[in-house]
Each structure stands twice: as structure tokens, then as C-alpha cells.
């Protein structure tokens, strides 16, 4: 359905763009219908930029993004509208996703005027009711209100309902629950699970490993714009190979097991995992690839045929 090949993004800053910073370099992955992929990385890893490039909110400097075979970057205004009928996004801050000057219904109204203009009032109301029910929202609690009168959880759920109005094929969810309280967070996450069962592909962007693990089928670990590890979620979490992934999993606070004493300790200040030369992705096991940087013990790794990595 969606395929990213060698996608790279370089931002120009400074006076007339003299300085350059590489946010994303050579990222490639595919998303099948009904598949949830979590894109995990710390701040500055470029994960949000990947999401924005897929949504064509910023252009890719190199590489290609194809959706159902057609190249997204070459879409004109009309084709882009068609694309947005299949691909939608939900963002991090619910209170920034709604224009405070209007009632929340406007967000739904925009979808109707842009994509479903000739829908009868009757059909529109049933479609609206169905999508609100799908996100367990009672129309009366939500419609006709201003954003500041609703909770973060309700606003995010309404955002998903908005996407459901379009029977989308693919959703980019960029840190959609990091601003929510723990208790309402999980309901929104479960919604993504329901979407998955309706065959919608989801890119779940987050910095929180436990959330990524909970909801996704496959996981991609990003570091400073590069994929360091990628594959089936149980494999990546169960058998992390790249030192960066290991460090991340090691540092995550669990509710029932204390941090392993010793090793890391206070000395581990922003410990730099070796800034080694970036090696190509090598398949460690089926559906589990790791970047072959130095310090990555690739015991039993087979070179990834497609990538043509050297034999180790």
C-alpha cells in the first residue's frame, strides 16, 4: 500500500539557507493494509519529519514515497485531495489541532465540504453518528462545543472520527497520546487497534517503547534520522541486537521490575552509543533487520539479499 524508498530530508537554515541539517537519511519501509507499524525514536530522531513527509506537509529531499503505486511527491492539487481522502493524520497536541475560534464541528464540516459535498443531509448525519460511535463518543457531549470545553481524550477521539468519515486506508498517528492522561490514553490506543481490524494501515509515531510494543505488529527504531533496527515487534523487543535498541529497552522503567543495578548507573549521562560509520541493514533473522554499525554483534546474521550487504 505505502512504500518509502531511500527517503531523505535535509533542512536549510540560516540566511538564505546556507547551513544544512540532515533530519532523515535513507529511510525505507513498506506498510500493508491493516498493519500497524510503530516508528520509535527519541526527540530529534526525525520520526515526526517522516510522518510529515508522508502527509506531504513537507517535501522529501531525496528518495520516493509511493502510495498504491503512484509517487506522492508528483501529486498536483487535485491528486493531493484524492490522496488525502485515503491518507489522514492525527497530531500530538489535541488543543493545537483545533482552531480555537471555531466550534469543534468545523473540523468535521471541512471534511464534508471538501470530500463529500453531494452527500444528503440524512446520509451525512448517519455517517457522522456511526463514526462517533466507533470512537465511543456521544454526539450530544461533543458537537456544538468549543475545543477548550472538551478534554484532550475527547478531542483526539474526535480527530480519529474525522478520519473515519473518509474510510481512509492509512493513518499517520504522530505522538497522539503523549499529551493525554494515562487513564484516557489507553482508550485512544485501543481505537487504533479497532482501526487495524477495519483494515486501516497505521504509522504509530512515538518515543514511548511500551506503547509501541502494545499496539504495533512491526517496529522501526530511528536514531538521528537513520533506521538502526526494524522488524516484527516481538522480535525487536524480545531480541534487540543493535546497542542503541538495547540501551533504550534497558532504560525503560517497568512497573514490576527494578532497573538492573550496576551497568548503567548515574555515569550513563547521555551516553553516546558509538557514533560509528552507518552500515547497511542486515537481516539478523526472518523479518528482523539491524544496521551493521560497529559494536553490533551480528551473530548468525545473514546479509539482506535485497540490500546486498557484505557477508559477515
Amino acid at each position, binding site marked *: 500500500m505505502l512504500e518509502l524508498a531511500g527517503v531523505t530530508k535535509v533542512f536549510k537554515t540560516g540566511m538564505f539557507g546556507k547551513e544544512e541539517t540532515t533530519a532523515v537519511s535513507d529511510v525505507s519501509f513498506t506498510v500493508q493494509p491493516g498493519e500497524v507499524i510503530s516508528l520509535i525514536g*527519541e*526527540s530529534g530522531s526525525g520520526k515526526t519529519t517522516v510522518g510529515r513527509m508522508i502527509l506531504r506537509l513537507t517535501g522529501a529531499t531525496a528518495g520516493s514515497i509511493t502510495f498504491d503505486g503512484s509517487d506522492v511527491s508528483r501529486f498536483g492539487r487535485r491528486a493531493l485531495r484524492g490522496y488525502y481522502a485515503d491518507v489522514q493524520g492525527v497530531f500530538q497536541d489535541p488543543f493545537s489541532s483545533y482552531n480555537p475560534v471555531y466550534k469543534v464541528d468545523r473540523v468535521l464540516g471541512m471534511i464534508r465540504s471538501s470530500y463529500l459535498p453531494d452527500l444528503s443531509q440524512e446520509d451525512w448525519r448517519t455517517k457522522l453518528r456511526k463514526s462517533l460511535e466507533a470512537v465511543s463518543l456521544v454526539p450530544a457531549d461533543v458537537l456544538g462545543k468549543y475545543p477548550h470545553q472538551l*478534554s484532550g*481524550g475527547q478531542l483526539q477521539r474526535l480527530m480519529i472520527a474525522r478520519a473515519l468519515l473518509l474510510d481512509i486506508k492509512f493513518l499517520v498517528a504522530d505522538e497522539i497520546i503523549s499529551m493525554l*492522561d*494515562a*487513564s*484516557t*490514553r*489507553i*482508550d485512544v*490506543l*485501543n481505537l487504533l*487497534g479497532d482501526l487495524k481490524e477495519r483494515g486501516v494501515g497505521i504509522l504509530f509515531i512515538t*518515543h514511548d*517503547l*511500551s*506503547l509501541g*510494543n*502494545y*499496539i504495533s505488529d512491526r517496529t522501526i527504531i530511528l536514531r538521528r534520522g537513520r533506521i538502526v533496527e526494524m522488524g516484527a*515487534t*516481538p522480535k525487536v*523487543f524480545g531480541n534487540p541486537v543493535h546497542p542503541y535498541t538495547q*540501551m*533504550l*529497552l534497558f*532504560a*525503560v*522503567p*517497568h*512497573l*514490576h521490575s*527494578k*532497573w538492573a543495578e550496576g551497568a*548503567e*548507573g*548515574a*555515569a*550513563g*549521562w*547521555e*551516553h553516546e552509543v558509538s557514533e560509528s560509520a552507518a552500515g547497511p541493514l542486515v537481516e539478523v533473522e526472518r523479518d528482523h533487520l539491524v544496521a551493521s554499525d560497529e559494536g553490533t554483534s551480528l551473530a548468525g546474521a545473514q546479509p539482506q539479499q535485497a540490500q546486498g550487504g557484505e557477508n559477515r
Partner: protein
Amino acid sequence: MSLAVDNLRVYYRTLKGDVRALDGASFTVADGEIMGLAGESGCGKTTLGKSLVRLDGRMQVMGGTVTLDGVELPIADDNAMNEFRFREVSIVPQYAMSALNPIRKIGRMISELLDSRGVSYDETLPELSRRLALVGLDDGVLDRYPIELSGGMKQRVVMVLSTLMNPSLLIADELTSALDVSTQKAVAEMLVEFRERKFVKSTIVITHDLSILYQIADTILVMYAGKLVEKASAAKITEDPRHPYTRLLIGSLPEVGVRFADRRLEGIPGRPPGLLNPPAGCRFRDRCPLAFEKCAEEPPFAEIAPGRFAACWKAGS
């Protein structure tokens, strides 16, 4: 000795009336104890933390007393409180990364602050650089401007500065929420290190992240809608939570290992009540699965077992 808070009430004055952000908190924190203060946004934990150090803007103490090491803190009187600030009670603020004056070199700012509090900078310098080294910073930091440091480095400078006078009580307000996983662990462990090295006697760590508290806190106090809900040791509160809210809250946290496919976690339906005129009785009543008619009467925050407190009629069973 330790911190004892008795029926502390702090409200926010607004145009439409008083928001009863903190409505009667009574608890104690022993010496050497790291108490986690957890709860969802708007539950009053930051209000509690701030009121122990400095009331800002529209906060007003409505009642209750706070005693630290046997001495009652004049928290309602801003000037009188000055004497205790920094020396006895200190805070690492939520905005630690932007708490340093941008136009002063860090060393100069610290020396001006110490002078203003009648402390000689030169005498403190050796200890200061020792503590900076402890958190992985060299003396060169003192000669640079805040803009030249990374967010993490600035936060560590603030942590060292706030605890420089070995305060009896340290409030750490949402220290880790803005950090990445890697630095989060180091910062959290540093708090424990500060206690081990007697930089601070007792610490209150304010955060919404229960798993961080499980790692470093001795006890955890959970708050909901301006009220204390449950307090117990970190282990007990996670394994055997007694208050329905705590139980549901912990139940909704996805642990690494739990997957959607095999077990679908449940959140807590509904929303916390508005605190402009909160409902009578237990404030969790309309979201609580165990609610019954007695809940109309507010449950006291009582000791249900040695070292365990809860505010629920059914918590005792």
C-alpha cells in the same frame, strides 16, 4: 526530623470563584524518604509541591499547617518564607531547562545568588565543582552562558544549584517528563544519589509517570481531583493497590511485554470533576465501579494498614 502536612488547603482565585485545587492534604515524609507524588493532570500535585516552596500568582493558602523538622513553615507569608527557601526547602522546577538567566554566565549568577543569601561563593566553590563533576559536568560550565549548554546539561546545573545548601526538603517537579528515555534514567537515579550523599534529607518527586516512581521512590502518594487518594510503599501500591482509582490507573498502563493482540487493557471512562464547585463526598464517585450510597459522604484519608493510607470506604476490606 521530617515533613508533616496537616489538612493543607490551597485554592486558585479566579474571576468565577475559587478553584479548589488542593482540598485538605495530610501526610508525613520521614527523613531520607523519597516520596513519589503521582496523579493525572489537574489533580493538584503541582499545587501541593509549589505551595511548600513559593505560592505564585493567584494561589492562596486557605488553611492547614506545614511543619518541617519541628518548625512551622510560614507558607502563606511570602517574605517570611524567604528565610527557609533554598536553605531548608528547595525546588527543581518543571521549567528547569529555561530557569537560568540568559544574560549572565552561570558561575557569576550563582555567586550573585549566594551573596544575596549571605553565603560566600568562594567557600562553596570546591563543593560546587565536586557536585558538578558528580553529574558529569566540568568546571568550564561556570564560565559559559546558558545558551551554550544543552537542555539536559542546564537541568543538571539547576539540580546541583537547588540542592547546594543541603536543604531538608527537595521538591522535584516533573523532572523527567521532558527528557528522552536515555537521560530520564540517569536523572532519576541522580535523585537517589543526592539522598545517599545526604545532599537532601527528604524528597518529593512529582510526576504522572508511575513506572519512574516505582524505580526510585520509597513510597508513592496518589492524588485525584485535589484530594489524597492512597499512600503506600512503591512495591505495595503497584502490586496490591487498595483504592479503586489506583487500581484502575495501574491497570491502564501498558507494560513492555503486554500486547494489544493478547490482552486489551481498559482505561477509566469519564473525566475528573471540575474543581470550581466539586461534588460532595468522594470525588471519584461517578467514575468508580465500586461506588455505593456511602460514597456520598467523604471518606477520610485513614491508615488502613501499617504505613498504608487510603481514602475509600471499601479500601479497608
